[in-house]
């Protein structure tokens, strides 16, 4: 008897049918993105071996929410740094040379370091969470190893019966290869 595994859907989402195009030229891939958007296609994936601003402009995606993770992490780190140093000072108060028990200026160092530490860690958490979330929604889609080397790629999720016009569009934009996946 097999039990449902909720993690399987996150890490191994079910396959999504569609069309995969391989582009040797950046401008051809950009033209294809613009044409797909004009044609009302949504949810397609663009592969690129490096980030290119031309693709970013053509895709016009919303700003990544990772910045909120960084901000919240930074604020939390600063607060924890302040709490740790102040609470521990008052919990074990030792008077030295008439100095204040909870003295803010030297604790700024701790607050700063904790801001950076938590900010960096939550940034990583943010990228991991958002990328995983997007991958779960998209499902397992086709990939070509050349996309990490010197080719650009576009995967359009579309049922096999309706893939003809998409294939024609991608070929028309200058795709080197177009295949059903």
């Amino acid at each position: 008897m097999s039990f449902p595994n909720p993690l399987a859907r996150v890490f191994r989402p079910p396959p999504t049918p569609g069309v995969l195009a391989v582009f040797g030229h950046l401008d051809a891939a950009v033209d294809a993105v613009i044409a797909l958007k004009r044609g009302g296609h949504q949810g397609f994936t663009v592969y690129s071996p490096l980030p290119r601003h031309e693709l970013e402009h053509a895709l016009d995606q919303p700003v990544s929410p990772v910045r909120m993770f960084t901000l919240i992490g930074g604020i939390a780190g600063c607060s924890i740094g302040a709490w740790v140093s102040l609470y521990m000072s008052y919990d074990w108060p030792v008077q030295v040379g008439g100095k204040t028990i909870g003295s803010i200026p030297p604790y700024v160092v701790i607050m700063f370091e904790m801001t950076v530490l938590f900010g960096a860690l939550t940034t990583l958490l943010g990228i991991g969470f958002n990328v995983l979330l997007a991958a779960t929604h998209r499902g397992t889609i086709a990939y070509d190893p050349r996309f990490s080397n010197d080719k650009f790629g576009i995967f359009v999720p579309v049922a096999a019966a309706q893939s003809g016009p998409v294939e024609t569009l991608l070929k028309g934009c200058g795709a080197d290869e177009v295949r059903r996946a």
Partner: protein
Amino acid sequence: MTMTPTTAPERTTSRVTYDVVTRTIARTLGNPGRGYYLLLGTAVGLFAFGVICLLYLLRYGLGMAGYSMPTYWAIYITCFVFWVGIAHSGTLISAILFLFRSGWRTAVYRVAEIMTVFAVMTAGLFPLIHIGRQWFFYWLVPYPNERGLWPNFKSPLVWDEFAIGTYFTVSTCFLIMGLIPDIAAVRDVATGWRRKLYTLTAIGWRGTNEQWRHYRPAYLYLAALATPLVLSVHSVVSWDFAMAQVPAWHETLFAPYFVAGAIYSGCAMVITLLVPLRKLFRLEQLVTVHHFENLAKLCLLTGMIVCYAYSIENFVAWYGGPTPERQAFWYRAFGRFWWGGWTMNICNAFLPWLLWFKRVRTNITALFVIAFFVNLGMWMERFVIIAVHLAGEPFAPFVRAGYNATWADWGIMAGSFGWFFMWFLLFVKNFPSVSVAEVKEELPPPRRAAGKHA
């Protein structure tokens, strides 16, 4: 390692194409030749010697460390500050130059980042060795305990612990972040066990628009967080000394002086590492003389700041007039350890003047030699500031006990070099030592019509 065939390189305006970049960097993961194994063997040998010395130290106690009143901070703290300093240029090149959009950093920043992580790892060993009873290291950590004791957060030593811990974590995150797209690139051309390793460590990276959308700003935020961190860490290290009322330590100049010195020694170490690495891995096409020249310019800038700091601290000791301060600087120059003081002056303050000449900056052999002496000088600077100024502390005649480093001290120091180079060499052999994705960013992308903007 073998690679699966890929398509012919695209026609671009540059000789170096995306495919050439991937293949050149993937080739470094193949058989590196006899020279590499010779270096690795030497590093492991040095490390083993250091471990033996450390075991002696553990067995016979800190008496083996050559300490004598009042010199209780000596070789280990010198090595700690030296290695933390070495770590600094990594984040400078990867974070600060990233924010300044310096394109040349792409070919060298990975080596600098790897150096940073392993240098901090090496530095972190020394406070533990220094405390003597290493098994109580966790007393440094603020944890609830039955006696209700907490660390003193007003102490610069506690600040240092937080600063170094944060620096190690953030620089490791930065290194891993940059590596992920590059591991994916070599995963797709690798075979056998390496393919499995890279599949696991690339954590599903495929370069999709959704991945880049989150990756790009995240990298920017990490760089923005790491930039003030670089400046803060060595400032905090300098306050370990500047907060104490020891002549030649109690200086407001220390924070910028230490930060500049750290970046100076770090850049010199990047040159020291890059020269043999470029030769061993045949990276001449990607790491060019232009990159070395820019590193030399960074060395020149920071070397001039260090030269200014040396001048001003000597001047202030004379001009300010307190007798202990004057005596400390006199002792540095003409006391028992005069050789240390003059080595640091010559290597750190005088030698970088040669870098004003373009012929020197563009001569890789000359740069390698200069970088070696800068590293020697920077180690000596920390030794002079720490051990020599403690040994010459002019409070009372009876404390002038001097300091004699033992073979265990030198052995542990040599072992730290072995430990650092061992990790560095193992890493560059198994993971991309030059950024694949970022080097490609500096190349013109393949377009249907040359010169046409997409």
